[in-house]
């Protein structure tokens, strides 16, 4: 059977790369004695799939993982994991009947909270284009407009909340977005960044199967 887990990644854990995070979960599950189901083949691995990794340095309230466990397992056990490293926490867990598409392939957009000097981000309120340069793997420079990736924005006193395209077809990284607003490629270091939720094309949370 497959369980879907929504987890928080916070504190020092936000500095793990995606691969490091996978390994941390793999080892945590083994320590807990969760009855994992393994892939077949030469080097069997636990069957665990993740949605979009959040960037290094970004807190995550919307980590999603599908993990295969032996039938008859009680998903509520995931709420009582005691051997997780500090900073990882299971927020919700349930059995999913049928996984139609991989978590990764469903990712379309995500909500982020940007906390800090949001005055410096006010260019967003204008209607000017927000250019930034993206350098491709082959070293080509492409000029892009951050507005093309912006679905929604909401301001409070200290927090800017934005919904940005995040899927495989079109996506923008938070550091690119903040650079487009401030003109400073290092500006993102000064904000507290949190991913709040991930959505599919229909605007449904990835929590839904």
């Amino acid at each position, binding site marked *: 059977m497959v369980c879907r887990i929504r987890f928080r990644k916070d*504190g*020092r*854990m936000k*500095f*793990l*790369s995606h*691969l*490091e995070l996978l*390994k*941390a979960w*793999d*080892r*945590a*599950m*083994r*320590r*807990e004695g969760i009855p994992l189901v*393994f892939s077949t083949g*030469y*080097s*069997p691995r636990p069957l665990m799939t993740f949605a979009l990794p959040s960037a*290094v*340095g970004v807190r995550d309230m919307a980590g999603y993982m599908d993990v295969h466990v032996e039938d008859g397992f009680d998903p509520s056990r995931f709420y009582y994991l005691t*051997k997780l*490293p*500090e*900073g990882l926490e299971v927020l919700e867990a349930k059995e999913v009947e049928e996984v139609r598409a991989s978590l990764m392939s469903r990712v379309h957009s995500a909500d982020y909270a940007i906390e800090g000097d949001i005055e410096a981000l006010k260019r967003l309120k204008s209607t000017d284009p927000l250019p930034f340069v993206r350098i491709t793997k082959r070293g080509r420079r492409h000029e892009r407009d951050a507005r093309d990736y912006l679905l929604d924005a909401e301001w409070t006193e200290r927090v800017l909340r934005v919904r940005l395209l995040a899927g495989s077809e079109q996506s923008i990284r938070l550091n690119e977005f903040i650079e487009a607003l401030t003109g400073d490629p290092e500006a993102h*270091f*000064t904000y507290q960044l949190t991913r709040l939720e991930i959505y599919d094309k229909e605007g449904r949370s990835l929590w839904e199967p």
Partner: protein
Amino acid sequence: MKESTLKRVRKPARYIGGEVGSVVKDPEKVDVHMAFAFPDLYEVGMSHLGLHLLYSLINSHEAFFCERVFAPDRDLEEIIRRGEEAFSTLETSTPLRDLDILGFTLQYELSYTNILNMLSLAGIPLRSSDRAEDMPLIIAGGPCAFNPEPMAPFFDLFVIGDGEEVTVELMKLYAASEDKESFLKKACQLRGVYVPAFYEETYEDGHFVGHRVLYEQAPYPVQKALITSLAGQDHPVRHIVPFMDTVHDRAFTEIFRGCTQGCRFCQAGMIYRPVRERSKEQVLRNALRLLDEGGYEEVALTSLSSLDHSEIREIVEELHERTKHRNIRLSLPSLRLDSISLDVLRRVSGPRRSSLTFAPEAGTQRMRDVINKNVEEEDIFSSAKALFEEGWSKLKLYFMLGLPTETFEDVKGIAHIARELRALYKETTGSDRLKLSISTSYLIPKPFTPFQWLAMTPKDVVEERQQYLSKALRSRQYSYSYHEGASSNLEAVLARGSRKIADAIERAFEHGAVFDGWNDYFRWDLWLQAFEECGIDIEKELGERGLDDPLPWDIIDPGVTKSYLKKEWAKALEEETTADCRGLCHGCGINSPRTGGICFGVPNPL
């Protein structure tokens, strides 16, 4: 460390701490606050068993707190140098200069400049004579401490030999001592402790002639610390489980210490004598506990020659039985290509697609006899055939160049083995797809080996042999790689140097030498400059030592006697081998009355 720093550096997982198995205590509430310092990057240091072992052991004492610190990568180093971040411990971000004790491990000579760099980043004066009373005590241990002299001026104290018991004794003594000097005076009475300030080197006409003892109670020579049995030593019962990929990312548990093979080039084989095994029950208990508590997917049974454990078959079988449902891989480092027992190999080597590593070390039987690598050519081929039949198609072979009495025939022998293996693979499997990687390193004449007096073979001689192999092994089936001469020469100079070398190490560091073991960073020119400025003749340092010359490392007594090493050297020249001493004691000296004849109950015949 500050968040803003962590956001800026590459691979921040190196610096976050908080791993499962790491320990945090309140430094205010312990008697001794120390850090174990590994002078290389986190991913290298965390693969080192000794770190986990001492960390777990020290922290099991309520009154002591041991943290960790590793060499920062260059990007973090810059941030620290700019003053934006203090160089501090992993667990509690304590600046290093606020510790009571900072203990480095000396695993390889090419990390020496990293030690100076770490002290300098911490704002700690490099030389012990320049450090005030309020500075931490800077100590060291590990294999390179067996010739402590090149690093002697930088350390207050060295631990020689098995560190477990004596480290705890030292910490107790430290807690009870008034000041550094009274501590050091008492500490030098402990077996295995060397306090360099209590000795000086003496020279005649610029030649090293011996040590003078400056504090009459200080022993000469300093005997290595020796734990006679590992039965009570179950540390580490916990590992620190890293987040990032480390060099050996797995649980590892030591199954025995020491080695009876007697390879003449191998320092570890001499200085870690005698063999002390952990029982099957102990090994299984440790391994299973590490797997349970760490959540690892692989466990390595480590030692200098793991197949030599008297119960290795039973251990491997039972561990396999008890872990197979969890998909745990077992691995045995340091396999030998002789009498391989395939059933063990099947259990430990994982997928057949992965490659197996062996070290025949030399290309001809004659040469292997000289170095006492007791593996026969027929064994190599018959084991290889069996492996090929089992489906393995990737092999890695290690050899050395610059061995004593080596001729071109011996070098050709390496290419010959490679060709024969290829032909054998074709004959066995009908395919031409064998992937063979061959690598050669330089023989480095290390202290306390029968080769310790030898000259380092000149670089150009070895390079010619490397070129020959590069040509002979030019084919898609082979890949040939070799160690560089310059860094090997540096390693030799640092390994056999006297205290005079310390000046050059410091000078090279000042010129910018750091991470000398990393090809990308190694700068031989800086070292040449430093040697010249300090008046050190490298040709002489690399040259031969007379059999009766006083040696800088005579100050240490590893248990194995000089007369035994001389005998072994004479046998090497006669191409005479010395069999594994499990069957027959050759009188190396380690089981002299002092240690109570602990080698397999076989009395020393001498």
